[in-house]
């Protein structure tokens, strides 16, 4: 990366002869971040993995004409035989389940993580930045959510509303923002004491600007890691809710598949292993993307 950067600098046009400054087009920050991201092999692998998962979730059900709930073969038939990934205890095709389960699983994971991020970042940022009574009130609310067992709270929420995709997403999001809020608050408390914030105030920056444009970008690295981990946690939590029968029973998800087949873990390993692998790989890919983004967004690492 080093030499590439250097070349670019040297080839930059400087001041032209007649004293008129040639103003360079500013290097697009996003383009630079993107090229940095693309230079990171592991991160690109993660991105490819996620693209595959998303493609499968969209195109899979169109190409593969099957019903994941239909009994198509002998129960508990081994993988790599008649069925690519075998069948479960009711003779349902595991492969079809994974393909059809991709969409709801990914949708639930991403949407509930988004809720987590929006709520967690806002509450953490406001509470860390303003301190005082705002911090007190917001942190007591956060603690209220932390103290309640999240599975119980989610169950209540889903039971009150109709079980379904929306209520599941909502329930997971509402129960998982607390740790992100606390982390954001801690980072804000640390960074707001730094001189750069005072220096920004001294040139007349507004509070909103300080929060979103000055402190937040500096707080991002640990937050990005936490967000990517949240995606994994959301998938697993959805599995738990599905297992308890709180998801729409007509929607197949990877978590539901594991939950239903858990009694046959020793007799038929494939019934839980393949959906589990799907979850593992998806979470891993997201974590790799997060890590790559983290490096790409950090200007200090750009020239290395």
């Amino acid at each position, binding site marked *: 990366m080093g030499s590439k950067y250097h070349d670019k600098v040297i080839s*930059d046009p400087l*001041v032209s002869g007649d004293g008129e400054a040639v103003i360079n087009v*500013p290097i697009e920050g996003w383009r630079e971040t993107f090229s940095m991201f693309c230079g990171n092999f592991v991160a690109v692998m993660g991105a490819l993995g996620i693209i595959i998962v998303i493609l499968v979730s969209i195109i899979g059900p169109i190409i593969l004409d099957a019903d994941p709930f239909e009994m198509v073969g002998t129960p508990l038939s081994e993988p790599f035989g008649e069925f690519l990934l075998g069948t479960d205890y009711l003779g349902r095709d595991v492969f079809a389940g994974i393909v059809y389960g991709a969409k709801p699983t990914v949708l639930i994971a991403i949407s509930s993580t988004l809720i987590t991020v929006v709520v967690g970042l806002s509450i953490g940022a406001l509470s860390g930045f303003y301190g005082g009574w705002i911090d007190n009130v917001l942190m007591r609310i956060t603690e209220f959510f932390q103290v309640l067992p999240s599975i119980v709270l989610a169950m209540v929420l889903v039971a009150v509303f109709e079980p379904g995709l929306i209520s599941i997403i909502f329930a997971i999001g509402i129960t998982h923002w607390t740790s992100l809020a606390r982390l954001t608050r801690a980072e804000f408390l640390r960074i707001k004491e730094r*001189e*750069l914030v005072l220096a920004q105030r*001294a*040139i*007349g920056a507004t509070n909103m600007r300080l929060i979103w444009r000055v402190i937040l970008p500096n707080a991002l690295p640990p937050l990005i890691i936490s967000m990517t981990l949240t995606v994994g946690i959301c998938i697993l939590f959805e599995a738990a809710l599905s297992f308890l029968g709180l998801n729409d029973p007509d929607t197949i998800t990877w978590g539901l598949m594991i939950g239903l087949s858990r009694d046959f873990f020793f007799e038929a390993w494939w019934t839980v292993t393949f959906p589990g692998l799907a979850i593992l790989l998806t979470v891993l890919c997201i974590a790799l993307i997060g890590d790559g983004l983290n490096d790409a967004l950090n*200007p*200090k690492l750009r020239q290395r």
Partner: protein
Amino acid sequence: MNQAIENSIEPVLDVRSLCVDFDTKRGPVRVLDDISFSLNAGSTLGIVGESGCGKSMTALALMGLVPSPPGRISSGEILLHGENLLEASKKRMRALRGDKISMIFQEPMTSLNPVYTVGNQVAESIIYHQNVTKEEAREQVIELLRSVQIPAPERRIDEYPHQLSGGMRQRVMIAMALACEPLVLIADEPTTALDVTVQAQIFELLLEIQKQRNIAIILITHDMGAIAELADDVVVMYAGHKIEEGSTIEVINDPLHPYTQGLLRCMPDIGEDDSEVRQPLFEIVGNVPDLANRGAGCPFAPRCTARVDECSTLPETQLLKDGRRVKCWRPQSTMPMPEVTAS
């Protein structure tokens, strides 16, 4: 410029009996006590004193950035161009900050935002206060960077703070502070974090900018050498009090307050050394008192070698000739202070 010339008759900045209190559990603690000074366009006021004596707090008070809570400005007036900053609304204050009154900080390493390019940060200051497009701001930024003597500003503008040396970063900070042609520039120990050669360059730059733009500079430092070189007038502070004030030449040649005399003797003297034995550097014994449990008397009394009985009450500020002021019961005019016998 015309405006600046008009102002040269009236002070640009006039601070009148400024007091700042910090509310603690044990009651309010006065960190700035009755600070007054004024500043004309194109002149430099030095504020000296050791750590914790209220220099930086004075700067923050002028900017309206006293950390609150627990701090609050309890009384006084800060008149910028006749406008009392202490009565200004938050919005007005934000508009003035960086526009009419701006500040550069001690640590250029930590006062720039590491995630944005320097151009971006300087441009921000322009965009806050002026109605310009991004392209216009960019052109202005390049000019500004050139005026603070950053080589190849067209290229530097797209670099990140960590790619610049300490001196360059401080120049960027200065460019940020100058972006909107301020009337007053507060330099809070601008060279403490820099090495000596760079210090000299930065001082040179400040002087040149002052000459070009006719701005008033408040230079906060503990370096008497810097004061001697740059400041027209000097205010010596101790434990939140202004203990001596006057033109730099007079204060340095004829310090009246025992503390100022001590400060000047603390400066290492580089010259030919005839004596075989090196003289140890002078030291003012003791520390700045804890502001919370300070007695009623002269704040410097516990460390003063010329202490007399009267020092147990707070001295009045005495106005001497040529606008010199000193807050001491027994100002002594002799420069080297041998044993002063208390009569």
